């Protein structure tokens, strides 16, 4: 009987407390969102399952937990801690991204810059709430709505917050269809939502080949700390556009990004061990992250309205919301809202321009914050 009791105490059932159950519930909720609601399933399913993995109560010292030296999960987590996975994700994103819409309408790039106001507003808010500057910068980057960038910066500046920041960033990326529409509708009139935009010009092949090289040089000379992210993003895009490296491009946009997404999602999820994750700081990070995301969305929409004051050719201010770099979800939300108002209005391709510019903008912002505070 004593043997049986000892066995029970050594099982997860015996060691679990309410915090583990809370985190397991969060993990199951993520799986539900990913599988049933199709909210960013490629991210939420690995992260959700990772949360389950990380919150199975285990003996400390057996080399099982993600924070224990020498454990398998710890080795896989190395790529998160050292900021290796985010640049590889950017390589894949670059190899998947078509910059044509951005090249056709360069004006819309500014919307990607305007949406980054959320990052810096949240940075200030986090400082106000008592976070140290490195933590505040890492929290602020959630407003970029760019999971890899958020992980990359927090791994450099506040490694102890990688878990909550990554979970917050990916949660809000997944919740783009829930968070953004009310703000977009609140800040625009129906007339503005009905604005139709003309067809973009045809973009030639040489332009698409030259762009990643020039953009890389310009952005990385301006913010050298963004080199790992932007270097890989533009390198991936060059592989895609130059047409002579099809095999590399194909690998980057399939095998590489898929493998890294699996490992990244799983380990980030597993890093949310209840005893590490359920703290007042994590709650603060989630609240600030949500605010950051909302400010970023509002910044993009309001800047689009401001641009309409100065430019003759009007743009639909809804596409300002796509300035946050949740690619392509925020562009899809813009399309959804625009299409709801006028079924003949197709904004998706226009929204992709600020969406991609947002990816570049948030990487520059991360580089700037790292330079100033790192």
């Amino acid at each position, binding site marked *: 009987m004593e043997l049986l009791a000892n066995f029970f105490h050594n099982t997860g059932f015996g060691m679990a407390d309410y915090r583990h159950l809370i985190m397991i519930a969060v993990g199951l909720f993520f799986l539900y969102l990913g599988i049933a609601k199709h909210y960013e399933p490629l991210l939420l399913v690995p992260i959700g399952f990772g949360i389950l993995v990380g919150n199975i109560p285990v003996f400390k010292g057996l080399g099982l937990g993600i924070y224990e030296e020498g454990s398998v999960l710890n080795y896989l987590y190395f790529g998160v801690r050292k900021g290796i996975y985010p640049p590889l994700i950017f390589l894949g994103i670059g190899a998947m991204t078509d910059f044509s819409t951005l090249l056709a309408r*360069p004006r819309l790039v500014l919307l990607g810059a305007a949406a980054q106001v959320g990052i810096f507003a949240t940075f200030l808010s986090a*400082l*106000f709430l008592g976070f140290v*500057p490195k933590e505040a910068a890492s929290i602020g980057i959630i407003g970029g709505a760019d999971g890899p960038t958020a992980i990359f910066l927090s791994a450099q500046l506040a490694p102890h917050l990688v878990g909550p920041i990554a979970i917050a960033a990916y949660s809000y990326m997944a919740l783009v269809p829930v968070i953004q529409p009310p703000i977009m509708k609140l800040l625009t009139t129906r007339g503005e939502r009905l604005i139709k935009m003309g067809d973009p010009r045809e973009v030639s092949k040489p332009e698409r080949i030259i762009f990643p090289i020039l953009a890389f040089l310009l952005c990385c000379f*301006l913010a050298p700390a963004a080199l790992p992210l932007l270097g890989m993003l533009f390198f991936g895009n060059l592989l895609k556009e130059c047409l002579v490296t099809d095999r590399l491009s194909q690998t980057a946009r399939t095998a590489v990004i898929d493998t890294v997404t699996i490992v990244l999602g799983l380990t980030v999820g597993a890093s949310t061990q209840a005893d590490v994750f359920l703290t007042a700081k994590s709650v603060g990070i989630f609240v600030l992250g949500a605010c950051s995301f909302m400010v970023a969305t509002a910044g993009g929409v309001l800047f689009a309205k401001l641009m309409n004051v100065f430019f003759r050719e009007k743009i639909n201010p809804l596409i300002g919301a796509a300035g946050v770099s949740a690619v392509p979800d925020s562009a899809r939300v813009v399309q959804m809202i625009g299409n709801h108002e006028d079924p003949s209005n197709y904004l998706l391709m226009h929204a992709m321009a600020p969406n991609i510019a947002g990816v570049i*903008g948030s990487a520059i912002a991360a580089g*700037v*914050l790292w330079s100033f505070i790192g």
Partner: protein
Amino acid sequence: MGGFSAINAASGWLIAALGISIVFFGLASLAFIITLFPHVFDRLNGQTPKSIVITLRDRFYPVKKPPAPATPVAEERLEEKDPDEAEESLRLLTAHLGEPFKLPRLLMLAEHRLARPHSTICRLILSGKILGEPDGLFRWAKGDEEESSP
């Protein structure tokens, strides 16, 4: 520590202002460069890399041509010390052109032989030695031609 004092202590306002400015500057520069793409590619369209290099070289570093060797004709250009000699040269030229002659054509030929062809021809017109005709052509005055013809 929190509140505005924490923001001030961390130079938060400055970092935020500089940060958003750098992001804007970076993306605005990118947008500006992209707007130049169509113009640049239109100009380069159909050109080989070698011709592009030559065009750029000529634009920014024009090759100085060596001075043209002095031609015998240039050496023969007459300084208008002797008006009669200059007039004689023009008469020889118009004999080649035939009368009536076009003034621009005479000027063009005279530029190789006279130092100041415009003033010489102007003087001859004003003195009535060269006469204009209603159809825009010119000829020598009759009396002069007889006097000075060999």
